[in-house]
């Protein structure tokens, strides 16, 4: 499934942040979004994930084949690592969690309560959730926050494995994951122009 974004215009808090954003993401490809803080990376990813509506433009190919991971991992501290993953697998109509536990080195932690994990371990669990969804397009917002170098390596390996199986990934990150196949899109080029006729100022 090709994710195609064409001429997208998005706003945050009623103010246009990006316009004319277009890209396509084919199976096996990864696209890394760059840009300074506040440029609209998170807003763009949330729009692609369907959590927010676009002001203009079109997104095709997301929907039913997309898995989203935002700033928070959606973990329940009173459930164990395995129970958290099993829950998300069941939500997506699956049951297999072993591969995900292994890929993010969580096997030994499987019986621990998620609330007792460190920030980096929680993040690894949050990323392992993507693998149990079985979805083809991963939409990731700053996936490497609070991960150490070894965990970033695990994550890069997981992404590479996902791409090799025909999946694709769209992510906002500033860390170099060493993914040679990933293209980079700098969002600064798509900043929305300030408009004279926006809001009350038009009356002045």
């Amino acid at each position, binding site marked *: 499934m090709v994710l195609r974004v064409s001429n997208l215009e998005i706003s945050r808090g009623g103010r246009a942040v990006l316009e004319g954003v277009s890209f396509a993401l084919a199976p096996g490809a990864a696209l890394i979004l760059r840009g300074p803080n506040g440029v609209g990376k998170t807003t763009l990813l949330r729009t692609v994930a369907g*959590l927010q509506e676009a002001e203009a433009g079109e997104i095709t190919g997301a929907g039913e084949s997309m898995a989203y991971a*935002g700033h928070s991992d959606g973990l329940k501290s009173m*459930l164990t690592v395995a129970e958290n993953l099993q829950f998300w697998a069941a939500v997506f109509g699956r049951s297999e969690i072993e591969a995900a536990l292994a890929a993010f080195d969580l096997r030994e932690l499987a019986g621990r309560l998620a609330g007792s994990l460190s920030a980096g371990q929680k993040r690894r669990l949050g990323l392992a959730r993507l693998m149990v969804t079985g979805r083809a397009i991963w939409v990731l917002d700053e996936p490497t926050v609070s991960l150490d170098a070894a965990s970033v390596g695990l994550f890069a390996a997981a992404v590479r494995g996902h791409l090799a199986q025909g999946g694709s990934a769209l992510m906002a990150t500033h860390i170099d994951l060493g993914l040679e196949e990933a293209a980079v899109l700098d969002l600064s080029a798509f900043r929305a122009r300030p408009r004279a006729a926006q809001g009350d100022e038009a009356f002045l």
Partner: protein
Amino acid sequence: MMALLARDLKLAVRAGGGFGLGLAFFLIVTVLVPFGVGPETALLTRIAPGVLWIGALLACLLSLDRILALDWEDGTLDLLATAPLPMEGIVSVKALAHWITTGLPLVLAAPVLGVLLNLAPGGYLWVLVSLAVGTPALSVIGTFGAALTIGLKRGGLLLSLLVLPLYVPTLIFGAEVARRGAEGLEVATPLLLLGGISFGAMALLPFASAAVLRINLR
């Protein structure tokens, strides 16, 4: 859907899940009433159905802000919204889980607490029936309120203020069923109206809750 229900029930009974809080509150309120109005058994008998209903309603209110706020804080709602579950289904399951962990224990405890209030012998069955029919409406309406106030800091008080007026019809007809039952009168009319409110709320409010939630998630 079943996974979500099972997870919510599991979370409720684990430490800090809040299971039993509403029930304990209900118990304390009903125990306090005789202290407040004095040891007049005739008076207690007369007010028992209403006191049981108000106690159940307030106990229900106590746990409303947990329905959605916890899932909102840890990002679960965002992820659920992108999962292959309809939002209407998610809020319905959330309301059902709330009813099973809060409403159902109240229904079962009410006849026992009726003894403390010297409830008339004929009233036990109808208190049970009216609460069984009415408490699902409390959970569904409460879920709607929780969806409205999600993302607000300290939204608990606002949630109570929003939801309590919406509870009025359920309270009126629910307490009326219990009162008429206790006095040995015909209960069909208020019971049918109570059932109508419950089923109407269950059928329509999940759509409203889902719409509100979608807007609040933006």
